[in-house]
């Protein structure tokens, strides 16, 4: 008995219609845990080298982790992995909601889709019953409408993942949505789903997750819930979710504003968590097992829509970066991105980039079909989201992401195309935050904050200094935070509520029956990190150090306003950060893991494939 797991790997070949299951290998569970560990393992071992991200050879892998669906605070995270059409490298996107728990109750630890269906389909999973069903009538519909139709048809207890028109039309940063508003947003996982002609996945399960020691597990889990409920931070996070960060982010000059040219938006008070709560929030909406729900269900009266959020990231990129200062405008843009199936982070960046091009005269009214693409123009943001999703006019270029768009527009625009590895930055302006900038540069999916969020470390240790401890801190965080993504749980109980990491150790032991220290688990996380790095080297010709560099704006163009006005990184400091980071990781000067490091992590066999 594999305690803590669903117990099976489900493989669906959409080309042939073949559906198979096999028991989850206990050795795999020990070596890669689950979640994103399983995602990269299957991607690395089962996807043919050099596969076209939008071709039938790419895989789309849904993996809960051992904690998913169990009595652990925040046990509601799912990893969705594939080769990214946005970056050409590894994509592992994390999404909350109830779906991950439902997949476990249906008995699965990974669901691996490959091939391409000849016509639009959805995947129906009801415990052991798995079918590929026709979805012709759903194709073309919005993400949210599709979920509603399927829930009405199949029953409320089915958990649904959908794509919108963005995913159908091949927008490179299309997302997968579940639970009416939680997204696996980053890296184009929705694009890959669309390329396989899969409109939705519907899952229901009613099996129990086996627990090795029920009484010990109950005691350990209860201690975790108690610690969360006693946390001083609970009142803030419960009331605002991540939107509580908006005011602080502006006060410290970290709020991406006008395409990352500033860190504070004038009028940011109007986007605060409190304004959002008062004006639009109806209900708190948590992921599975969550005592401090980020999810806020909102009614945007100005536009007559309901939307989950906006969360901090959507407010930062669709709000600050495009300079919108009305929470209802931001919420409506968030709604459009959700229903069209676009990652709100990348989409916000792309539109802010286009706005800067327009204000500099690189784009004109002729290019935009008459849309006045100026910062602060909410109507322009709404119009561009639709143009991108349907690839109309300039939307077809912007649908490829800022890196590609800057290569098309040229005229020096690559300096302010805010991306690393081809993925747009998430919501922390990092001209004056070396650890945070390094986090973006070295994140294994492209510029995302999920693997390391180090800005508080910069604040504590000095925002102008570049020292080896910053690289060390980033590496530490890149092992802790993604460990949660492998376990299938949320890290925010730790980040927000200071939930003691030591409380996870007895919980995991009682659940799985395997005694492992936190350090043992961190070693697994390091193994996963290095395997994703090898995947980049295997899949991207010429991959190396240049891919870890940020856009020149961060080291050439000082911040134009706000508390960090005038701040800019020196290029040699950026290079030095990378040097220190590679050295401490045991990687060479080009960022390739050394044979010794790979041996230490038990990855030598994988290195042979690179």
């Amino acid at each position: 008995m594999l305690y803590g797991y669903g117990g099976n790997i489900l493989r669906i070949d959409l080309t042939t219609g073949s559906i198979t299951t096999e028991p989850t290998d206990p050795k795999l569970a020990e070596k890669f845990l689950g979640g994103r560990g399983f995602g990269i393992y299957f991607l690395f071992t089962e996807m043919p080298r050099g596969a076209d991200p939008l071709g039938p050879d790419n895989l789309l892998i849904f993996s809960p982790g051992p904690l998913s669906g169990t009595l652990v605070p925040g046990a509601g995270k799912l990893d969705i992995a594939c080769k990214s059409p946005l970056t050409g490298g590894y994509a592992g996107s994390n999404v909350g909601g109830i779906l991950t728990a439902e997949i476990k109750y249906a008995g699965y630890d990974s669901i691996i889709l490959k091939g391409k269906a000849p016509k639009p389909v959805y995947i129906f999973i009801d415990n052991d019953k798995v079918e590929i069903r026709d979805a012709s009538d759903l194709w073309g519909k919005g993400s949210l409408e599709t979920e509603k139709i399927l829930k009405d048809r199949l029953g409320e207890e089915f958990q649904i993942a959908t794509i919108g028109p963005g995913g159908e039309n091949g927008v490179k940063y299309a997302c997968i949505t579940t639970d009416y508003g939680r997204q696996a947003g980053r890296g184009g996982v929705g694009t890959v789903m669309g390329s396989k002609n899969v409109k939705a996945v519907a899952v229901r399960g009613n099996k129990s997750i086996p627990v090795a020691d029920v009484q010990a597990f109950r005691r350990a889990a209860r201690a975790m819930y108690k610690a969360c409920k006693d946390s001083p931070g609970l009142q803030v996070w419960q009331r605002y979710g991540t939107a509580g960060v908006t005011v602080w982010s502006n006060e410290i000059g970290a709020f991406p504003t006008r395409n990352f040219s500033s860190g504070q938006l004038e009028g940011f008070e109007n986007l605060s968590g409190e304004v959002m709560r008062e004006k639009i929030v109806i209900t708190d909406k948590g992921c599975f097992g969550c005592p401090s729900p980020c999810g806020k269900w909102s009614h945007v009266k100005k536009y007559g829509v309901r939307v989950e959020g906006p969360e901090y990231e959507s407010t930062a990129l669709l709000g600050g970066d495009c300079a919108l200062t009305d929470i209802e405008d931001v919420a409506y843009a968030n709604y459009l991105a959700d229903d069209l199936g676009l990652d709100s982070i990348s989409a916000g960046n792309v539109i802010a980039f286009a706005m800067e091009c327009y204000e500099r005269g690189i784009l004109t009214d002729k290019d935009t079909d008459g849309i006045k693409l100026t910062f602060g123009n909410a109507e322009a943001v709404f119009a561009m989201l639709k143009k991108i999703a349907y690839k109309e006019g300039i939307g077809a270029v912007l649908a490829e992401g800022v890196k590609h768009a800057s290569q098309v527009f040229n005229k020096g625009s690559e300096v302010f195309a805010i991306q690393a590895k081809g993925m747009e930055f998430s919501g922390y302006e990092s001209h004056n935050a070396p650890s945070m900038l390094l986090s973006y540069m070295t994140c294994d999916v492209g510029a995302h904050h999920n693997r390391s969020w180090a800005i508080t470390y910069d604040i504590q240790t000095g925002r102008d200094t570049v020292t080896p401890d910053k690289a060390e801190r980033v590496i530490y965080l890149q092992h802790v935070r993604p460990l949660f993504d492998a376990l299938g749980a949320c890290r925010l109980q730790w980040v927000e509520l200071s939930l003691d990491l030591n409380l996870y150790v007895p919980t995991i032991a009682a659940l799985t029956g395997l005694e492992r220290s936190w350090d043992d688990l961190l070693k697994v996380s390091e193994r996963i990190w290095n395997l994703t790095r090898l995947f980049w080297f295997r899949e991207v010709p010429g991959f190396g150090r240049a891919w870890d560099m940020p856009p020149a704006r961060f080291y050439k163009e000082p911040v134009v306003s706000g508390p960090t006005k005038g701040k800019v990184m020196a290029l040699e400091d950026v290079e030095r950060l990378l040097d220190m980071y590679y050295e401490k990781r045991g990687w060479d000067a080009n960022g390739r893991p050394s044979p010794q490091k790979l041996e230490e992590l038990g990855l030598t066999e994988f290195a042979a494939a690179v």
Partner: protein
Amino acid sequence: MATVELLGILREQAKVRPEDLGPADGKPVADVIQALGLPADLVAFVMVNGRQQPKTYIIQPEDHVILIPLIGGG
């Protein structure tokens, strides 16, 4: 009179105890943070009577002000 409460690491890092500070009424929250000897950027949230406020908020008599750090730090 308004009261000021510190949570988490702010309690350890403050150079002065809030109760030794004298009346906070009429002052912006930012001034109180400075008087406590705290780095302003470490204070992530200012909650006044259960509602979040910016650091420019002027403290009113009878307000209960809670300063909350970004605790997890990661």
